[in-house]
C-alpha cells in the first residue's frame, strides 16, 4: 500500500512522476474502506468496479502522453503537414508538405506541443548554421558567435529558452556540434534506430535523427518516444544492447580524439571508479576525408530530385554550399575518378569500421571532444569551405560507422562560451551511454543553464 497524498497537487504530481499509479491509489483507498467501513459506517455504496475502470483509464492517458505539454521545436528538415518546410533553402521557400515525418507524428501523439520550425544550414550542409539561405542563427550565449550547425536553430531555441526540447539531424555532427555550442545534451543515435520517414534526405547512409534537451533524462525520454519501426523506413532496426552494470564499465581514450577540457571530464569518470583505457585508432584521422567523399556523392543523388518540376523552384536557387557539394559528389562519382575517390572512400570506411569494432571489444565507450574548437565567430570560416569542413573532424567517425554518440555539456571557456564532450558507444548501446551520462551529471552536480539574452 502507498502513502496516500492529502492534496490534489500532491496526487497529480505523484501520478506524473510515476511515484504511484492511479490503480495503486484506488487500491489504497479501497483497502482502508474495506478495513474500517464496517466499524465507522461511512459509505453506503462502494463503487469498486467503476473506480478501477477510471483509474486504468487515467493510467493509460498518462502513459500515452509521456510528453504532455512539452514544447518542441523541429528542425526545418522535418516535414510537418500543412506547415511550411524549407530545409533552410530558398528552393523550398514555399513548400508545404502534405504529411508529417514519423517523429513529428510520434511527438505530437505523445502530447508534445510544436512551437515552430527552426533555422538550419540549407539542406543540413554545414557546421555553423551560416549556410542557411535565411541567414545565420546567432548563438544566444554570445551573438557574435555561431550557434553550430547544421541544427543551429534547434539548439539555439533551447539555450534561448524558446522551447523545452527540439529535434535535429546528424549526418556528421549536426546535432552534437550545435548542442555543444549551446550547453545542451543531445544524442546522435545508432544508425537505423529512428525512422527517417518524412525527413529531407542529405546523405542516406549517414543521416540520423535525434533529440536535443537540457538533461540526459529528457533526451532519453524523447528517444524512447521517437525510436522504433514505423513501416516506412526499411533501415529501421529495433535492437538494444541493454544497460551494462556500472561497476564494470570501461571508457577508452584515443590520442586521435583529444581536445581542450577533455582531461577534466576523464577525471570525473575516474572518480566514479570507471576504468580508463588508452586505445589506438590510427585510421580515424581519415574519417573526415571519407566523409567528404561519401556524403557529397549521396548529396548529389538526393538533391537531384529538386529539379523545379516536382518540388520547389529551379536549381538556380541552390546556395553556394549545396552547389559545391553537388559538384563534389558528381566529381567523385564521375568516370575516371570513381575508383580513386568513391570506391576508395568506401573501402577506408570498412577499415575505420573494423577499427571501431575492435576498440569496442575492449571498452564500452569512447570519450572524445565534439568539435576541435569552442564556438567560433560568425564569418570566421565562411570563406574557406575546407576549414569549415574540418569542424566536424571528431564527429565523422560515429556517422561513418553507424555508432551512437551522446554529447554532454561541461563547463565554459573564459569568454563564457559552452564546452562539452561526446561519449561514443558500440551500435545499439544507447542505454549504456545514458547511464554513463546520468552518472556524470550526478557526480558534477549538473544543472541546466540557459543563455542570458
Amino acid at each position, binding site marked *: 500500500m502507498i502513502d496516500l497524498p492529502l492534496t490534489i497537487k500532491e496526487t497529480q504530481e505523484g501520478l506524473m512522476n510515476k511515484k504511484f499509479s492511479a490503480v495503486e491509489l484506488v487500491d489504497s483507498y479501497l483497502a482502508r474502506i474495506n478495513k474500517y467501513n464496517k466499524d465507522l459506517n461511512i459509505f453506503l455504496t462502494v463503487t469498486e468496479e467503476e473506480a478501477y475502470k477510471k483509474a486504468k483509464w487515467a493510467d493509460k492517458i498518462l502513459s500515452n502522453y509521456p510528453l504532455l505539454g512539452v514544447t518542441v521545436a523541429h528542425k526545418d528538415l522535418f516535414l510537418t503537414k*500543412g506547415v511550411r518546410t524549407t530545409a533552410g533553402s530558398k528552393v523550398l521557400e514555399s513548400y508545404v508538405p502534405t504529411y508529417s515525418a514519423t517523429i513529428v507524428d510520434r511527438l505530437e501523439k505523445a502530447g508534445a506541443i510544436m512551437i515552430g520550425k527552426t533555422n538550419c544550414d540549407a539542406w543540413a550542409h554545414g557546421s555553423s548554421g551560416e549556410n542557411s539561405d535565411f541567414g545565420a542563427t546567432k548563438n544566444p550565449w554570445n551573438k557574435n558567435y555561431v550557434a553550430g550547425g547544421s541544427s543551429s536553430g534547434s539548439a539555439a531555441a533551447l539555450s534561448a529558452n524558446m522551447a523545452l526540447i527540439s529535434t535535429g539531424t546528424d549526418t556528421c555532427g549536426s546535432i552534437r556540434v550545435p548542442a555543444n555550442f549551446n550547453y545542451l545534451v543531445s544524442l546522435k543515435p545508432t*544508425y*537505423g534506430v529512428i525512422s527517417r520517414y518524412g525527413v529531407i534526405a542529405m546523405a542516406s*547512409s549517414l543521416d540520423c535523427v535525434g533529440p536535443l534537451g537540457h538533461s540526459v533524462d529528457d533526451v532519453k525520454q524523447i528517444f524512447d518516444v521517437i525510436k522504433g519501426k514505423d*513501416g516506412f523506413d*526499411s*533501415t529501421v*532496426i529495433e535492437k538494444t544492447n541493454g544497460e551494462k552494470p556500472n561497476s564494470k564499465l570501461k571508457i577508452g581514450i584515443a590520442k586521435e580524439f583529444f581536445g581542450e577540457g577533455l582531461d577534466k571530464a576523464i577525471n570525473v569518470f575516474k572518480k566514479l571508479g570507471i576504468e580508463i583505457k588508452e586505445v589506438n585508432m590510427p*585510421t580515424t584521422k*581519415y574519417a573526415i*576525408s*571519407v566523409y*567528404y*567523399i561519401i556524403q557529397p556523392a549521396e548529396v*548529389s543523388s538526393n538533391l*537531384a530530385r529538386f*529539379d523545379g518540376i516536382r518540388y520547389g523552384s529551379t*536549381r*538556380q536557387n*541552390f546556395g*553556394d554550399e549545396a*552547389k*559545391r557539394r*553537388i*559538384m*563534389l*559528389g*558528381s*566529381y*567523385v562519382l*564521375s568516370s575516371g575518378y570513381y575508383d*580513386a*575517390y568513391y*570506391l*576508395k*572512400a*568506401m*573501402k*577506408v*570506411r*570498412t*577499415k575505420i*569500421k573494423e577499427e571501431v569494432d575492435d576498440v569496442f571489444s575492449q571498452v564500452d565507450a569512447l570519450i572524445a571532444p565534439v568539435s576541435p574548437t569552442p564556438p567560433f565567430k560568425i564569418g570566421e570560416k565562411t570563406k*574557406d*569551405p*575546407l576549414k569549415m*569542413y574540418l569542424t566536424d573532424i571528431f564527429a565523422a567517425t560515429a556517422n*561513418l*560507422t*553507424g555508432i551512437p554518440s551522446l554529447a554532454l555539456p561541461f563547463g565554459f571557456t573564459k569568454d563564457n562560451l559552452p564546452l562539452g564532450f561526446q561519449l561514443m558507444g558500440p*551500435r545499439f548501446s544507447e542505454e549504456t551511454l545514458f547511464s554513463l551520462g546520468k552518472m556524470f551529471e550526478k557526480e558534477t552536480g549538473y544543472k541546466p543553464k540557459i543563455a542570458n539574452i
Partner: protein
Amino acid sequence: MGNLSKDDVLHVAKLSKLTLTPKEITKFQVQLSKVVDYIGNLSEVDTSNCQPTSQTTGLENVFRPDEVKISNLTHDDYFVIYKILNKEK
C-alpha cells in the same frame, strides 16, 4: 590529383545540372581544388584487403508481408476506398 581545371568545373556542373556564372566558376575552381586535394590523402591508406562499406545496419532485403487487404466496406453496392483527394482549407 587535386587541381581542377576550369573545364573540370564546367564538366561537373553539367553533370550536376547546374549553370554557373563566370565568377562562380573561378570561385568553385579554387574551393573544390582545395577540398579534392585534401581528400586525396586517402591514397595513403592501404585498402588492398578491404571490401567497400555502403551501409552499417547489415540489413538485407527488408520486406513486409505482401498481404492483400480486402475492403469489406460497401456503400450502395460500391466499394468504399480511402479518400485520396482533400479539399484544401
